């Protein structure tokens, strides 16, 4: 479904990604893990069009999407959330979701039609556990709710492939469990790729995991394979065992 081949990226003299290749199969949940500075978020940024790779290619459903701008990638059915929350802070939770729906996007230049709430927008808020807070402004939501809204925005675009960048960053145990349940519920209904520090979280959900270090993929496989992998053991990721 989605394939990145031999991606390279450097910022000035600093090589951030080197020969990174990944495949995300349809209907599966793939994970990307690694320590801080491993290049995970840069990798996400390349896959979702924020940066163009210096070398390498990205293909989605057989189509070369290398270097396409984010808006065109989004319109192909690829959506993402952000590690640092990127919401429309002054809008209510409902309006955040509405703006992200393809229905509003397709009428975005309309100056005479109305901006009305849709059942789908309410359903999306329900799906992430914000069904009782549609009219609360994004900036007034709790941290955990903002994390959930971040995912709701990505879901509102009705994606085929959803990238989630550290969806549990900064959350406590209870809120992390809530996000894990949410992501678990999304599994199989769409293709998911999740960057995560929390190994327990990722190992409990992912079908396939890529381990990154120093801008490279140092290991990959199922959670069970990786637990036994000496590379993973030796890196500072072995905390799970």
């Amino acid at each position, binding site marked *: 479904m989605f394939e990145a081949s031999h991606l390279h990226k450097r910022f000035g003299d600093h090589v951030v990604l080197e020969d990174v290749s990944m495949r995300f199969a349809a209907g599966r949940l793939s994970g990307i893990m690694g320590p801080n500075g491993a290049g995970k978020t840069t990798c996400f940024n390349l896959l*979702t069009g924020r940066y163009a790779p210096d070398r390498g290619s990205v293909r989605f459903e057989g189509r070369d999407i290398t270097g396409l*701008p*984010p*808006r065109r990638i*989004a*319109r192909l059915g690829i*959506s*993402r959330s*952000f590690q640092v929350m*990127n*919401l*429309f*802070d*002054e*809008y209510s939770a409902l*309006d955040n979701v*509405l*703006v*992200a729906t*393809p229905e*509003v*996007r397709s*009428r*975005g*230049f*309309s*100056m*005479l*039609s*109305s*901006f009305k709430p849709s059942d789908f927008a309410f359903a999306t808020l329900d799906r992430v556990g914000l069904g009782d807070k549609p009219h609360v402004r994004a900036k007034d939501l709790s941290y955990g709710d903002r994390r959930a809204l971040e995912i709701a*925005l990505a879901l*509102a*675009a009705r994606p085929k492939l959803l990238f989630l960048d550290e969806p549990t960053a900064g959350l406590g145990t209870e809120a992390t469990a809530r996000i894990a349940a949410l992501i678990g519920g999304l599994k199989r209904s769409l293709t998911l790729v999740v960057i995560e520090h929390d190994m327990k979280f990722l190992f409990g959900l992912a079908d396939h995991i890529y381990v990154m270090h120093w801008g490279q993929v140092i290991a990959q496989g199922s959670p069970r394979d990786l637990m036994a992998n000496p590379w993973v053991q030796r890196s500072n990721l072995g905390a799970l065992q």
Partner: protein
Amino acid sequence: MLQGLATFALFATLPLWIGKVGLYPYLGVEVMIWVIYALGFNLLLGYAGLPSFGHGAFFGVGAYAFGLSQIHLGTGLWLSLLSAIAAGAIAGALVAAFISHRRGIYYALLTIAFGQIFWFVAIKWHSVTRGEDGLLNIKRPPFLEDLNSLYYFCFLVFVLLIFFLWRLVHSPFGRVLSAIRQNETRARFVGYNVWAYKWLAFVISTLVAGLAGGLFALAQQSAYPNVMSLHQSGFVVMMALVGGGLVSFWGPVIGAVLFFVARDLLGAYTEAWLLWYGLLFMAIVLFKPEGLAGLLKDVRSKSSA
């Protein structure tokens, strides 16, 4: 809703009472033209979050287009106004094509630079613009010779424009513009062509500035480069911010009314009225960036709590 009714009631009845409070009827025409200009400007600043500090250029382009089309093509009122609108939109479309990929301080600086170009051309292209003297003796049609008729003609345009802009800011386009102001990056990642929205917002805003400029030429019966100066461009920014355009559709109405009241009432006592208005502007930026509309909102929410 209440602010809208108050605005319409104020301007609909203004000729009946303005003389009684020691002011003159033409002031109403002037205020309405500037309210139209400030509301269009606020689409850009308040809704799209794009600071244009050279917007006077488009007001001036509208005024010149109105006069030039009348002088050289013999156009009547409607075609002259249409020329003003089209000239504002075309000039805006060209400028927006160069600046819409920018934001923040770079965007603001580019608008100043382009504004200065238009102002310079208006002064130097003497054979067309008549230099610093500008275009004089622009004619009003006979049915607008009377000040009352002129006033209610401007009022009609004013009402239609307010309905158009109100509809626009509550449409998907307006909501997306506001989303872009709040978070341009996210808007890109949910699939919006941010450049195109910024471009179109600028064009609509300059189209309205062109219309206001056309009405100005009609009312003043002249068009001159002073209205395009950086100094004059600053006035509309002050009106939008002092009034509270960042938090309310009606903010620029408050700002424009206050500006002219300050000019005429304070101006009766001191030549330095602009100094006091400037100090008010500074105080608002420092202590209440949401402007007077924000202050009114606070008062209302406190009294209802």
